[in-house]
């Protein structure tokens, strides 16, 4: 644990609601999170330069009007462009979870090397269920260092990761540049790839993609909620096991705090 816990800026916009869950996860991981409304930043009551990490939590910013994350992305692009640019370009850690991921994608920060989007689940409805995630071994992002499988819930209606169609016919395929940026994939409970099968891949994301990084690896976006599995009792089957179940989401946040304290 770093001697001075890095300060983490958890950005709050209208309709954000997993800010508290995320703050608790970072706290537990040794960070010093602060939930700061965008309005307070705009009024100069807080300064984004004083933080070692930027985190965009889940929720329904602006009610997901015009598509999930779209209007929050507009905030990022118009009011927060300099700050976001500073984080992304200087290699400071940035994480967006669920609605935060959607905002980063719609703002063009995470594009998987092509045109990417997060759109409506193939099931056509919101889905709250637990999933198994496996980290992409080929992605060297500090967020993923030494990470094992994560069990955690998804809770979204627009989590299907798609990219601009490559080629003329059939399903879109992932360009090689995009493949390298895949961070987390949906898997079956035994860790084998979901291969698109519902409900293991809960939204029919392309190539089981649950999370991606930027090319540099400092920005991570993901749909599932590791911040909602930081205690054993949050796991849905904890009463079945005499020993605490594994697969907690906490190591991801520990990685993030470690990363932040080194930048």
């Amino acid at each position, binding site marked *: 644990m770093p001697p001075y816990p890095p300060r983490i800026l958890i950005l709050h916009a*209208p*309709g954000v*609601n*997993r800010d*508290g*869950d995320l703050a*608790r996860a970072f706290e537990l991981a040794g960070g010093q999170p602060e939930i700061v*409304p965008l*309005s*307070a930043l705009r009024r100069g009551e807080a300064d984004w330069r004083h933080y070692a990490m930027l985190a965009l939590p*889940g*929720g*329904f910013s*602006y*009610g*997901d*009007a*015009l*598509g999930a994350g*779209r*209007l929050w992305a*507009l905030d990022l692009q*118009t009011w927060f462009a300099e700050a976001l640019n500073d984080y992304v370009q200087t290699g400071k850690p940035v994480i967006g979870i669920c609605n935060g991921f959607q905002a980063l994608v719609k703002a063009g920060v995470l594009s998987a090397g092509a*045109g*990417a*989007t997060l*759109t*409506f*689940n*193939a*099931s*056509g*409805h*919101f*889905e*709250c*269920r*637990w999933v198994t995630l496996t980290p992409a071994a080929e992605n060297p992002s500090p967020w993923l260092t030494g990470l094992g499988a994560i069990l955690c*819930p998804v*809770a979204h209606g627009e989590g299907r990761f*798609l*990219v*601009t*169609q490559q080629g003329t016919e059939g399903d879109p395929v992932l360009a090689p540049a995009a493949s390298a940026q895949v961070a987390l994939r949906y898997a079956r409970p035994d860790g084998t790839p979901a291969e698109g099968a519902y409900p293991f891949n809960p939204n029919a994301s392309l190539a089981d993609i649950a999370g991606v990084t930027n090319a540099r690896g400092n920005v991570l976006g993901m749909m599932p*909620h590791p*911040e*909602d599995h*930081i*205690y054993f*009792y*949050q796991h*849905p*089957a904890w*009463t*079945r096991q005499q020993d605490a179940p594994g697969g907690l989401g906490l190591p991801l946040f520990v990685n993030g705090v470690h990363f932040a304290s080194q930048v």
Partner: protein
Amino acid sequence: MLPVFRLEVASSLPMRAQGVLAQLPTVGFTRPVQLEIVDLYFFESGDQPLTEEAVDALAQSLICDRVTERYTVRRDERKEAGGGVKAEEIMAVEVALRPGVTDNVAGELLRAARRLGLEADRLNAVATGQRYVFRGDIERDALQKIAHSLLVNHTIQRYALGEITPEFVHASPETTAAEAIPLNALDADGLLALSKARRLSLDLAEMSAIQGYFRSLGREPSDAELETLAQTWSEHCVHKTFKALIDLTDRRAAGQAVTTQVDSLINTYLRAATERIAAPWVRSAFVDNAGVIAFDEQFDLSFKVETHNHPSAIEPFGGANTGVGGVVRDVLGVSHRPIANTDVLCFGFPDQNLADLPAGVLHPARIRAGVIAGVEDYGNKLGLPTVNGAIYYHNGYTANPLVYCGTVGMGPRDRRPNTALPGDRVIVIGGRTGRDGLRGATFSSLTMDAQTGEVAGASVQIGDPITEKGVIEVVERARDQSLYHAITDCGAGGLSSAVGEMSEKTGVRVDLARVPLKYAGLAPWEIWLSEAQERMVLAVAPENVPALQHICDTYWVELSDIGEFTGDGQLHVVYGTNEIVRLSEEFLHGGRPRLRLKAEISAGARRGAGARRGGATGESQPQGDSALGPGAADLLLALLAHPNLASKAYAIRVYDHEVRGATVVKPLVGVQADGPGDAAVLKPLDVSGWQGFALANGINPYLGEADPYAMAVSVVDEAVRNAAAVGADPSRVAILDNFCWGDPRRPEILGSLAQACQGCYDAAVHYGAPFISGKDSLNNEYLGTDGKRHAIPGSLLISSIAIHPDVRRAVTMDLKAAGNWLYLVGEWQPALAGSHAVQLAPACFAGSPALDCSPQLPQLAPQIYRALHRAMQAGLVRAAHDLSEGGLAVAAAEMSLAGRLGLELDLSALHEDACLALFAETNGCLLVEVEPQHTAAFDQALRLESAPAPVAMRLGQVTEHPEFRLAFHGQTLVQLPLAALVAAFTHS
């Protein structure tokens, strides 16, 4: 005319169209067709013409998804009304909201467009819609029918074949004065006619009292004054039936009628139970917007459950949506942070034949889809986990669906400011006021008919959860900084109720010209009465207003200062210099003549408490194979697949039940998370240590039809027992009552309500479970065009909140390991009244004495639940599940399928009649799984001094072999593979 632009956005993804296509058979259309759904956006120029380039830029940067969507922009051509449809467009239907209906997407889009530089002089307004393009074997008539009964809700939407002409809300001419209503010269008929014409829902005595008041003032009332009185005196706001003086005539005793007087149902039964129990941990019961109990030294918990039935019947999404929003604001009204939601929904059967629906009624499948989506939308967007509930089907709910929405809040101990002081400012925070939701309180007190949807269209509200989320953030911070003296929500009756309630002891002066409006042109009485959502009223000392304003600015919440609490005992409302309302608070709150009602319990009604105790004592010979035989397995599967018993995953999975990270026991449990949990257990992240709380409920309308008293005791028992099943402390349970009944002016309806209240009292006192809050929704009747009344079965929901001393000891219902023993715990008293097994297989139970038996209040249950609780705290219990609909066989099967483990039970010791042993329903019982090494300790823990017989009986063991076996007197009655149970329960 300056141009209006039309933007069409089409998606390459088929899900939405597939969803609509899947529903076509429910409106009788079965031919194969293709469908494309296109989103429509309309942009109206300001004083300067809008350009196509500007709209194109909006489409590119804000609206159209580059990966999955494509768009076109063009100038919208106005067409002559009713004509001008091009031939090739005939197979397209376009749908848009009626003007004035809240359109959150259009609102956000307009705001975003302003930020991108499109000011009001260029872009005046935005509207949205959808275009449905059908291709294939379909003609105009069929299309019209599909549009009419599937695509459009006429209450809030309109449609056109071909292209629709957008409508924008424009300011209507300003009216700033009140209108005087001639009242003082009216006779009795005239008063009633006025009440009816204005939909005041006031009876003659009430109208006469109002007439007397204005005669004494020597003037006629204004429209706003009359509406204020109607709202304040409505059933919805003052619960006049529950406070009425009732002459109750009981005809059950042979040959004689006994009439007694009940001086207020609420005081006699509900409040009386709470007072008799006198639990020291009850912080507030019945007086505040929500009930409050102690959690620990630091925190209190609050709980409130509301109904939103009538609005959900005519606009299911908006009705349920604002139902959630309303109950969340109730919790804000006790200055608590909302932390979890519950929902209990009652519908007609979703396979109901369309042709048999009463005129003017939406199909139950549509109501269900809309209501679930409405609960999902509001709860998920507020970031509140929806963790407990039920869905119940009954033909009586076809025209009258029930939507019970509950919210739990948490706040610092004993910190609930609720006294406005003279000199305080009247501060409104949150949403703006529009014409939406006018007269909701009186609307909810009316019997509905085929015209209700049309007439009450204005009563429908569409929620805006993101605004409410901001209000939540503001209230929590304002409370922590002690910035207000009182707070209440704008619910039914709008400002008139909220301000009226807060000023009861002081008086108030309000200027309606200072209320921010969604659009200009509202008459003063409309501003005063509007039920626009997401508003709270606070009493704030003038020096604290700037600090509150700063918090509101931070969370994007609008604040307006509309007046002052005065101290002169007058409710005084002006619009600028125009006088709108001047009523004495004394008359407004104390002038209502007390309602006097007649209730009757007919000779044929059940004895309730006097019914045969102890269930059916079987004198007959063992009946196994002969009566039931191989049918037992089929009946078990049919029960598991019955809509009332089968998995509710279709709703649970669209609710976020994980947000806030507190959900220790989730609504679905077990190996594959598909078993029906008995109760939710939560431990808020803010709480240190291991204490948490459980949420559960009980509802049983089928039993209520047969025996309202028995229903009441049964649902109280079930709400307590479900909480006990997950390990909550059965002596720390608080309960809420929600009565949904028919028209109380009909004596037999009121009689059954009185019986249910009596049951509430007896059961609450029995369990030491105080009522902390309650609500009634009466007049749940629908008058068909044929004059036939469609009433709901009297439906009592009991919701429970119970302290869980150590969530690490929480227990779930899924079987855990082979070799463990399964016990039946409790006094098993078989009853069949209202049971599901009898409905499905009446022949199996013909002649059974249990047919006449209702489940009773189990005498030893409080001690048994406490003993079981101690065993759970000692770690002796691996699983527990309550016996409810479908009896023991269903409970055991659910445990088995949830744990994906086999079970082998012998039920011979229960009863001579196999049908009863398997399927009879009972109160007070649970199945409990215990490891072999703990059986001795468990037996010891469940030994009660006072019990004549053991209250825990071993029935058999858990097996690795995936088979479910029930034996009876040497025969195997049920032998089913686990997969069959799973398939039946999950409909997979």
